[in-house]
C-alpha cells in the first residue's frame, strides 16, 4: 500500500486553513471587513479579536479572511489564464515545424522577459490598479512557462504511433489535442500549476503592496503588509499575521507541487 507523501500532506495542511477561511468569508466574517471601531484600535490578539485590530479598530481576522479570498482568487485566475493560453500554445509549437513555430517561440520569450511587476505597472498606468490587472500581469508571465512545459512534454507524445493512428482515423487537431495529448502531459502540467499558483500568491502580494493590484479599501494581504508596516514596532501582529498567511499559501503550493511531482512520476 502506498503511503501518502509527507510533502503532500504538509502542503495540503498548509493550504487547508487559509482556503477554509477564504471560503468562509464569502458567507461570514466576525466583523464587517471595513467596519471602523476607533475605541478599540490597535488591540493585540484576544478572544474577541483573535488576530487583533488595526489602527482604525478594524478586525484583522475579518480583513485577513477577505484578503485571503482576494489573493487566492487572483492566484487561481492568473494561473488558470496562463495555463489556458500557454498549454495550447506549447502544443501548437510542438506540433509545428520548427521554422513555422519560431515566431511563436520568440513571442513566448518576449512575454517571459516582462516581469509581472512591470506589466502590472503598465496596466495600472493605463487603467489604474485593479485585481484584473494583477491577473493579466501574472497570467501573462505564466503563459510562456506553461507553453514551454507543454511543448517539452508534448513532443515525445506527438511522436507516438497512436497519435498518427488517431489522425488516420479522422480525428481533427483539436480532438487529438483533447483526447490524446492533454491526458498524456497532464502530470507535469498539474505539478507546474501548483508551483505557479505559489508564485502567483507571492506576486499578487507584491503587486498589491506596490499599489498595482486590488485597490483599497478592499483588503488584500499585500496591501495590509504595506499599510501596517509602519506599525511593526507598536503592533507587530498587524504585519506578522498577513505575512504568515502569505508564507503558508506559498509553502503549501510548493510542497503540494513537489509531492505531486513525485507521486505522479511513479
Amino acid at each position, binding site marked *: 500500500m502506498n503511503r501518502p507523501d509527507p510533502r503532500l500532506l504538509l502542503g495540503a495542511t498548509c493550504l487547508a486553513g487559509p482556503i477554509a477561511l477564504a471560503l468562509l468569508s464569502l458567507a461570514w466574517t466576525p466583523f464587517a471587513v471595513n467596519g471602523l471601531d476607533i475605541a478599540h484600535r490597535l488591540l493585540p490578539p484576544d478572544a474577541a479579536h483573535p488576530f487583533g485590530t488595526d489602527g482604525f479598530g478594524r478586525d484583522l481576522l475579518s480583513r485577513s479572511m477577505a484578503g485571503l479570498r482576494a489573493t487566492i482568487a487572483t492566484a487561481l485566475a492568473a494561473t488558470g489564464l496562463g495555463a489556458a493560453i500557454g498549454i495550447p500554445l506549447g502544443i501548437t509549437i510542438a506540433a509545428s515545424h520548427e521554422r513555422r513555430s519560431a515566431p511563436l517561440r520568440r513571442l513566448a520569450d518576449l512575454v517571459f522577459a516582462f516581469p509581472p*511587476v512591470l506589466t502590472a505597472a503598465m496596466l495600472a498606468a493605463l487603467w489604474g490598479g485593479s485585481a484584473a490587472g494583477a491577473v493579466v500581469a501574472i497570467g501573462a508571465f505564466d503563459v510562456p512557462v506553461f507553453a514551454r512545459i507543454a511543448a517539452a512534454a508534448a513532443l515525445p507524445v506527438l511522436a507516438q504511433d497512436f497519435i498518427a493512428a488517431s489522425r488516420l482515423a479522422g480525428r481533427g487537431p483539436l480532438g487529438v489535442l483533447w483526447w490524446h495529448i492533454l491526458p498524456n502531459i497532464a502530470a507535469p502540467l498539474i505539478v507546474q500549476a501548483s508551483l505557479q499558483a505559489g508564485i502567483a500568491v507571492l506576486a499578487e502580494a507584491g503587486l498589491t503592496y506596490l499599489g498595482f493590484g486590488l485597490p483599497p479599501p478592499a483588503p488584500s494581504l499585500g496591501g495590509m503588509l504595506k499599510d501596517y508596516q*509602519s506599525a511593526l514596532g507598536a503592533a507587530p501582529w498587524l504585519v506578522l499575521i498577513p505575512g504568515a498567511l502569505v508564507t503558508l499559501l506559498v509553502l503549501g503550493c510548493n510542497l503540494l507541487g513537489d509531492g505531486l511531482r513525485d507521486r505522479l512520476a511513479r
Partner: protein
Amino acid sequence: MPRPALAACCALLAPSLTLAAPAAAATPDTLNIGLQLEPPSLDPTTGPAEAIRDIVYDNVFESLTRLDEHGSVQPQLAKRWSIADGGRRYEFALDTGASFSDGTPFDCAIVKFSLDRARAPDSLNPERAFYAPIASISCPAPDHAVITLSAPDSEFLYHLAWAASAMVAPATAATNAQHPVGTGPYVLENWKRGSSITLSRREHLRAPIPAIARVSFHFIADPLTAADALDGNRLDGYVNFPNTDMLSRFQGDPRFTVLVGRSPIKLIWALNEARAPFNDLRVRLALAAAIDRYAIVTGYANNFATVIGSHDTPEDPDYLDLSAHAPYDVGHAQDLLRQAGVAAGTVIEIALPPTDYAHKVGDMLAAYLAQVGLVAKLVPMQWPQWLGDVYGHANYQTTVIAHTEPRDLDIYARPHYYFGYHDTVYDALFAQYRTTTDPAAQHALWQKLQQRLADTQANVFIAALPRISIWNARLRGMWRDEPIPLNRIADLSWTP
C-alpha cells in the same frame, strides 16, 4: 528563484532598500533632512506644490518680506517700508547689497519684473490673485520701490512674504524650475531625481554666514524607512513626519528632539461643486454629517491633530472654532441624501494623492460612506496626475488633500479654483475684508468668512494637522511651529 517570486520579494523588501544611504553627519556643517515628497520643479513662482517651498524658499529664493516662526511679517529684501494713501501706496527701501547667485544685482528693476511677471495675464503663478490689487510699480531709485494698489489690501505685506512672491531675475526666470537662481544664501548643487536635492552655501556671503554649508533633502515617503534612517544616523532630521504611531520610538530617545508644533495645514475632503450632486448643499451637509471627524483624527493622527469646522486652523489669531459644526449623525446624513435624491449605491469617487494621510483618511471615508449607503471608489494618483487632473483641470468628484497655505480663504473667492465654489455672499464678504484696514473689523470679517464656509459646507473640513519634525538632538535653530511651509536652513547649526 523564479522571476515572479524574485520580483515580489523585491517589492516586499522595497521600503528597506529605497534609501540610498546618505552620508552620516560626520562634519559639523552638513545636514541630511528627510522629506516625504520630491518637488516636481524648483520654481515657487510657477509651481503650487508645497515640496518646492519646503526646499528652496528662504534658502534659494527670497521675497521682499518674510514670516518669522510666529507668523509675523519681517523685512527681508525690503529693509523697511511705509504705507500711505489709506493703504494704497507702499514704499519699500530695498537691500541693494543683496544679489542673485549668478551675480545679478538686486534692485528695484528686479522687484518690478518679478511682480509684473507674477500678475501678468498669462502668469503661471499659483497665487496670481495676490497681485491683482497692484495698479503700478515704479522705481524712483534702484534702492526704492513704490507699489500702488487700486484698493487697500490688508494682506498685501503678508502675501509678499509667500514663496510665490519670490524675487527672480529676468535672465534666469524661465529656467528656475530646473536651475533655480535666487538671492538666498544657498544654491542648487545637484538634483538626483527620485532621490535627493543638495543645496550648498553660496560663496562671498555677507554676515551672518549660515553655519550649515551643505544640506541634502532626501525623499523618503515611507515612514518606516524614514524612521530607520533617523535611527541609523543617516538622516539628521525629518520634517512633517507622517506617522504619529511611530513617534513614541523617538520621544524617549535622548538622541532625538521631537517637535510637535502648530501649522496652517488643513486636512479637507474637497468636493467639486461644479458637478452634481456636490452642487447641492444638502449633499455637502450630508457628507459632512456622515463622517466622524474625531474618529478620523484619532485613527489617522493619534489625536495629534485638531478637529476643524471651516478652512482655518487654531494657530491663526483670527481663527473661529467651528468644530461643533456638522456633527457626526448617520441618520441626519441619510435623511439629507434622501431629500437630495441621491440613491443608495451611488458611487462617490475620492481622488487620493500619494500621501500617507490621503490613503488612511480615504480608507476611513469609504467606511463612513458605506454606513449611509454610498459606495466610495478610491482613486490613487501620483502627484503629477493629481496636479493636472484635480488641481489643474478640476476633473474630479472629491479628493482628500491637505492645504498647507496659511490664511488662504481667498481661494474660495477665486472664480476658477478647483473646488468650483461660487457664493456671492462669500465673495462680497471677502472683498470687504480685503479692503478693510481696521484690525478689529478685519478680525470680525475673517471670522464671518469662516462661518460662511461652514454654513455653505464649501468642503468637508476635517482637521488641522500639526507640524511634527524629528531632529538630531545636537541640532539647534529648528522651528517648532510652521506659519508657512519652509525649512530655513540658515537658522540651523550643530552644537559642538
